[in-house]
């Protein structure tokens, strides 16, 4: 049954429901493939034994009304999981085992999902290539020594390599969409407030959102349906009619107006990206959608604003990792000394860089010039989208300005690394939903993604548009299992 892992999430659910497959068979298949795939370094913590027990438990007493009946899933190691080590890719949480479950993973468990492991990610989700993880680089299954994107790099790599039928990530500035784009998979960043942040290790609270990463749009709708819920444990969770994303999925986009923001045609963008974008435009038009040129005039300020707001919040969110209550502690001669040693040994360079930036922009005398101004920019960016949505139903852009790059290629140039998020960051600042779907390859054969940005709380619309494009784009990932001996 070596082809179990080739099945998509939706098909696995169907097969388990029809009893063509047992949870144990499915779980074993993904575990076996994971065990052969250590070279990718996607797992930080394996939960295989436990997962097999749970699969057996499911098979003994199956409940086929669940949305993920006995489905094994590996998840990003930013979600706190009860009794399973949760590290956020950091040394400072190397041995941290939560006694609680994040709301999103709880929702997955409630629907019959089985957690088979915790996936590598950039430390505290700060990175675009998974190279800041304390637990090492992750390989992109597309090609050796290629980054899988970040911060949800373990997730994208595991998904593309079929070590998990689907996965979940978090997206603060593009951490779901960019790795999805780099690995030829689908990633959805939901509207801020759609998925609860309870139990997710915080990076930048006002930007963080959890979302599904899947092989295709249908799987995405299915998993998103499970993840999204109103949660009174998260004050920023929003109560709204969440609908049935899978049932209401359809590819009819006749009459839909899709905006093309001219500001996203940045200088020096590879030709292939432009072509990809045009390809998307043509498909939309041939599917009956209407293309409308729009303007998002403040786009240029999004990245700088993001790199003020996100580090500012991070500098405060990460203050709790002080060696006092849990996690890594270094010995010091007094409290301050202990803090300094714990935090300088416990955090990696990128995390420290962002804590420094964040601390700086919040300091008295600089607050108005940086943090406050960035918040104003954020408001302007939000206004840009509000204006655009008076004319269009959704917006189409490339997901990233380039395809995946080599491991080590950008580690010494943080700014060029940050530029990777140029198309994804504005969406987080505006709190909107956006989906990245694979749409083509560059001349090296690396996948490229298109991003569809929607109106707040209208994920259904972008899922449908993505579904419609997906059907016509005939994307196929070229993965030859190079890492399996």
């Amino acid at each position, binding site marked *: 049954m070596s082809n179990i892992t080739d099945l998509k999430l939706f098909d696995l659910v169907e097969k388990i429901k029809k009893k063509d497959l047992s949870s144990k068979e499915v779980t074993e298949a993904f575990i076996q493939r994971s065990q052969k795939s250590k070279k990718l370094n996607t797992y930080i913590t394996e939960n295989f034994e436990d997962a097999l027990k749970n699969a057996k438990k499911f098979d003994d007493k199956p409940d086929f009304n669940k949305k993920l009946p006995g489905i094994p899933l590996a998840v990003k190691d930013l979600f706190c999981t009860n009794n399973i080590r949760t590290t956020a890719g950091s040394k400072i949480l190397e041995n941290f085992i939560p006694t*609680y479950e994040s709301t999103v993973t709880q929702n997955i468990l409630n629907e019959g999902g089985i957690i088979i492991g915790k996936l590598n990610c950039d430390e505290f989700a700060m990175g675009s290539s998974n190279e800041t993880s304390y637990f090492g680089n992750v390989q992109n299954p597309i090609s050796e020594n290629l980054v899988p994107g970040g911060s949800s790099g373990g997730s994208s790599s595991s998904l593309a390599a079929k070590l998990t039928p689907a996965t979940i990530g978090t997206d603060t500035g593009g951490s779901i969409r960019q790795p999805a784009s780099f690995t030829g998979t689908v990633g959805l960043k939901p509207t801020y407030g759609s998925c609860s942040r*309870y139990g997710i290790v915080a990076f930048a609270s006002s930007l963080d959102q959890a979302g599904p990463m899947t092989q295709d749009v249908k799987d995405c709708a299915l998993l998103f349906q499970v993840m999204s819920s109103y949660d009174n444990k998260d004050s920023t969770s929003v109560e709204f009619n969440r609908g049935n994303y899978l049932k209401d999925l359809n590819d009819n986009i006749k009459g839909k107006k899709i905006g093309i923001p001219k500001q996203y045609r940045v200088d020096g963008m590879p030709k292939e990206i432009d072509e990809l974008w045009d390809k998307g435009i043509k498909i939309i038009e041939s599917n009956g959608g209407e293309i409308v040129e729009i303007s998002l005039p403040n786009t240029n300020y999004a990245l700088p604003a993001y790199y003020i707001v996100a580090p500012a919040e991070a500098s405060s969110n990460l203050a709790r990792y002080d060696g006092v209550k849990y996690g890594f502690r270094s010995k010091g001669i007094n409290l301050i000394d202990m803090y300094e040693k714990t935090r300088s040994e416990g955090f990696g360079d990128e995390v420290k860089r962002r804590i420094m930036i964040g601390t700086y922009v919040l300091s008295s005398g600089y607050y108005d010039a940086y943090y406050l101004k960035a918040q104003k920019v954020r408001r302007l960016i939000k206004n840009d989208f509000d204006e655009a949505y008076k004319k269009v139903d959704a917006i189409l852009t490339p997901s990233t300005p380039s395809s995946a790059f080599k491991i080590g290629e950008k580690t010494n140039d943080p700014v060029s690394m940050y530029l990777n998020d140029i198309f994804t960051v504005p969406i987080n600042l505006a709190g909107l939903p956006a989906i990245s779907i694979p749409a083509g390859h560059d001349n090296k054969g690396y996948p490229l993604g298109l991003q569809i940005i929607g109106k707040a709380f209208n994920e259904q619309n972008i899922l449908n548009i993505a579904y419609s494009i997906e059907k016509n784009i005939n994307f196929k990932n070229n993965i030859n299992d190079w890492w399996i001996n």
Partner: protein
Amino acid sequence: MDKLSKESKEYLIKREINEYEVVIGLEVHAQVLSESKLFSSSPTKFGSEPNTQVSLVDAAFPGMLPVINEFCIKQAIKTGIGLKAKINKKSVFDRKNYFYADLPQGYQISQYKNPIVGEGSVILDMPTGEKKVNIERLHLEQDAGKSIHDIDPQSTLVDLNRSGVALMEIVSRPDLRSLDEVNFYIKKLRSIMRYLGTCDGNMQEGSLRADVNVSVRKKGTKELGTRCEIKNVNSIKFMQMAIDYEANRQVDIIEKGGVIDQETRLFDTKKNETRSMRTKEDAHDYRYFPDPDLLPLELNDVFINDIKKTIPELPDEKKKRFIEKFKLSSYEANILVSDIETSKYFEEVSKNSDVKLATNWITGELFALLNEKNLEIIDSPISSNNLAKLISLIKNGTISGKLAKSIFEMMADGDKDPNKIVEEKGLKQQSDPKELEKIIDKVILENPQNVKSYKSGKDKLFGFFVGQVMKRSGGKANPQLVNEILKKKLN
């Protein structure tokens, strides 16, 4: 009143030539009376075993998020209404960032630029008349945990029971001018909050503490001097000692031609002195910014008005009513309304007996008894019900005032019913004129010589007859009646 209070005369620091006025502002931290913490559902009970009232949120575990406790918001609004203050329909919770072992999040959630309550005022009933103290703001914030340095010689231990407990910080304008005013101000704040049930005001348990801002200026000048802030003083007495020390310290510096450095100081209660904790230069940069985990708090009129409906009669209004309705003096009314339990007790007693007698008995005998036994009125050994009965017995002539005092003492032992005491011990006053007449007749019959002397003008002998009658009645004869009948018989 406290021994330290320097009457009501002006509080001035005097030196050879100059006299200095002391300018005081207080930042009072009042613990919100609430079952659970400001952002978590952990209990807030004082005195529990260390780290037994700590949720994952209080200990700042990864991924934990604060959720506003609506009850604490209501308590803050109530207090704001009690301070005649503006309730801000939009307020914001900010993070105040600093590292300390007992601050698990690495920041305190507080309110910085947009507090829940704006400007208000408090009226002090000073012996010299009313004084208005302006309130700048009231905001909500989390308390920190407790670092314990003296149990383990090697380590500091941390107790997080208090971590996340809701505090109201009430900031006054620098309107206070004397130690007495500080005393009256704290007591008035406490009184208002106890009336409202928003803070128990228990200073021993740390439910009420204050940061004290002190500056001095030459008498007659308008400009404020540079202030020093004395952190975390937890009793009125210590506040007064700290202010007195600090004001004198500042005056000494100025007298020597020096300038005051703005700084944060600590009060050493053992040495009775303030010491520099940090100067302006090494003041913390708290990097305040709005807490992204919490949305701005927006209140609507209905919510605020519903709370307004629950506000009880407050001390100022109650005082006014007592004066108007019961014809009490301002002094008496002040004493009776200062504490909500006293005012309740008074109203219960006076309702069923007599206002004047109730006032006298409560402020006299009862306060003396409570003082002696070191009890609060809520734990009074004599219930309001029984004190009302005792007063009624006096009023209807069943017992004399003198007898009432000994009955009062007997009542204190197990809250006994005075009616029963009177009955059991046969202490009922003899007020039956016929019975009294019998005794009087006997006394007159047995003392013909004295009767003769009295009639011939020795008026003083009247007392002798009264005494004899009282003796025969075993002290129970109604003295007023005895007088009346005796006079009739002898004249």
